[in-house]
Every structure is written in C-alpha cells, then in structure tokens.
C-alpha cells in the first residue's frame, strides 16, 4: 500500500503546534515571534496535508506548493465541485463544511506574517527577518513590542482549529485512498 504522505504532513503540523506550545509556555515576550512562527507553520502544513490528501484520493492532480501564502492551496480547496450528492462526511464534504470565508480570511491573515520579499524596498512585518515599522525604522521580530500576547493567542486558536480540521480530512482521505487501492488490487 502506498504511504499516506498527507498524514506525514499532518504529523509535522502537529509537531509544529507542540513546539509553539512549548515556546508560548516560557512566557518570554522576546519569543512571541517564534511561537507565532510555529503556529503559522502548523497551519501551512495542515492545509498542505489536506491538498495532498485530495491528490492521494484522486480528487485532484494538484500537489501542495512550496510557497507560504497558501494561494495555490486555497484555489484548489475553495472551488472543489460539491453538490447535494456529496456525502457530508467525505473529505470533500468536510472541506466545504469548514472552509468558509471566515476560515479562509483567518488563514490568509496568519500566512501574511511569514517572511516575504520586500515590497518596493519595504520589508513587511514577519516572524523571521528584521522588518520596517510603519515609521520606516527597522525592528527585529524578537523585539518585545513586535508582537502581542493577543496575537499569539489568536494564532494559537486558529492553528488548533485548522489542525483539528486537517486531522479529520486527512484521516478520512487515507481511508478513501486505501479503499481505492483495495478495489484496484
């Protein structure tokens, strides 16, 4: 049987979440950027695992991208063909049920703090590299005032929700994949 790589994405996403939890538990305000970075990575890998799961169950030919922004993954997930014939507990049914406009907006906001190239000479705020403040001066992500506790808490909540969602879908997807393989064996 082919290995369900989607579950490997999910396991690494889970590990990222646990790492974020360990950093957050230190209560060190200079480590907020690292906790947020781990929660962002958790979400990114969870969503990519979902796309990989759809690929394994032949719903799509697409693979996860190597980009942080998740634009490619959202293109695939938000336009999945769905109708009254779609079983609600199938991977496609679960995706459609949970990936609403709010969740997409939350994910896009979280991905926007991953490092990107400077835009017109301005390095946007991110969790990895020195960046420009609105005033134009430089700041590092580890500065005490670069990120707030509220932001850490919000990222954690969205990561936890995304991880739970991805667990359901990649697990259901692995069952579909196995069933397809058994049928063609």
């Amino acid at each position, binding site marked *: 049987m082919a290995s369900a790589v989607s579950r490997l994405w999910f396991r690494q996403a889970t590990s990222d979440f646990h790492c974020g939890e360990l950093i957050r538990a230190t209560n060190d305000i200079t480590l907020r950027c690292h906790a947020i970075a781990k929660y962002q990575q958790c979400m990114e890998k969870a969503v990519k695992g979902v796309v990989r799961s759809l690929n394994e169950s*032949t719903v799509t*030919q697409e693979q996860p991208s190597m980009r942080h922004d998740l634009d490619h993954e959202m*293109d695939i997930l*938000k*336009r999945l063909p769905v*109708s009254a*014939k*779609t*079983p609600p507990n199938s991977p496609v049914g679960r995706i459609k049920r949970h990936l609403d406009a709010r969740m997409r907006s939350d994910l896009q906001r979280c991905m926007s703090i991953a490092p990107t190239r400077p835009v017109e000479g301005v390095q946007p705020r991110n969790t990895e590299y020195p960046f420009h403040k609105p005033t134009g001066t430089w700041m590092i992500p580890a500065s005490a005032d670069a990120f707030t506790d509220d932001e850490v808490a919000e990222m954690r909540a969205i990561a936890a929700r995304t991880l739970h969602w991805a667990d359901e879908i990649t697990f259901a997807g692995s069952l579909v994949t196995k069933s397809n393989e058994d049928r063609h064996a």
Partner: protein
Amino acid sequence: MTQQVQRSELRRTDEIRQLISAHRELEDETLLLAVQFEPGRESDSPDDVYLFEVYDGYHHNIVDRERGDFTDISYGSTDAFPLPRDAYLHIILTNPIEFIEGLRSGWKLASELKGAVNRGAYEILHEENNSLIEAVRG
C-alpha cells in the same frame, strides 16, 4: 482531419452551470466571466472538461509574470462532478488585469482560449460585462 469542435460538442453543461453557481457565491472574489471551451489538446483525454474563469480580486489582481501563464487546476471524478477514469475537469483561473496581459503576451492558456473562440468551440456561461470576451475576439 479537421480538429474543429462545434459548440454542441461541449460536454457536461448542467454540472458546469452548478459549479459556476457555487463560484458566484464566493464572498472574497467576484466572478466576471465563465466560459466552457474546448482547447483541442491532443495530450488530454477526449472526456476532459475545460472551464475558464476570470475573477475580480483573484490573487489580489496581481499579474504572475514569474509563472507566465494562468492557473490551471485539475480535478478528477467526484460525486458532484463524475467523470470517466483518467478524465479531468480543468478550471483555469485569472483576474481581469492578468487576463488582458496574458492575451497580449500570448500565454499558452490564453492562446488556447483564443483558438477555441475563433473556432466557435466555446460557450459563455456567465458574464458581468462583455469587454473581457471582446478582448479575446479582438
């Protein structure tokens, strides 16, 4: 042998219309144009289905010059859109600014759409205004 495909040969129009209806409900992008077309690709299955969509707001209305073509997402058979084995539903995605740039620069998918329109192998299934399809015809 002619490769021309007549409009009447376009397949699965009912399912495509349902799909477009769902895409019109996306809150974060506005569907401006949806065209089912037949690109005449010899490498694809004869049962493949092609839908071209232009959304205002798609990828923040930015032109992806690095890729140099529109996005082409392909789906296999699903409960909502059943297809024969090894056949795919292709959804080609872009925004109005990239659409015009792709036509002007002769991107591959833009050329396929243009060829289909010239052969009459297409059907407009949703249109907010006709300036986009006129750009293809022009």
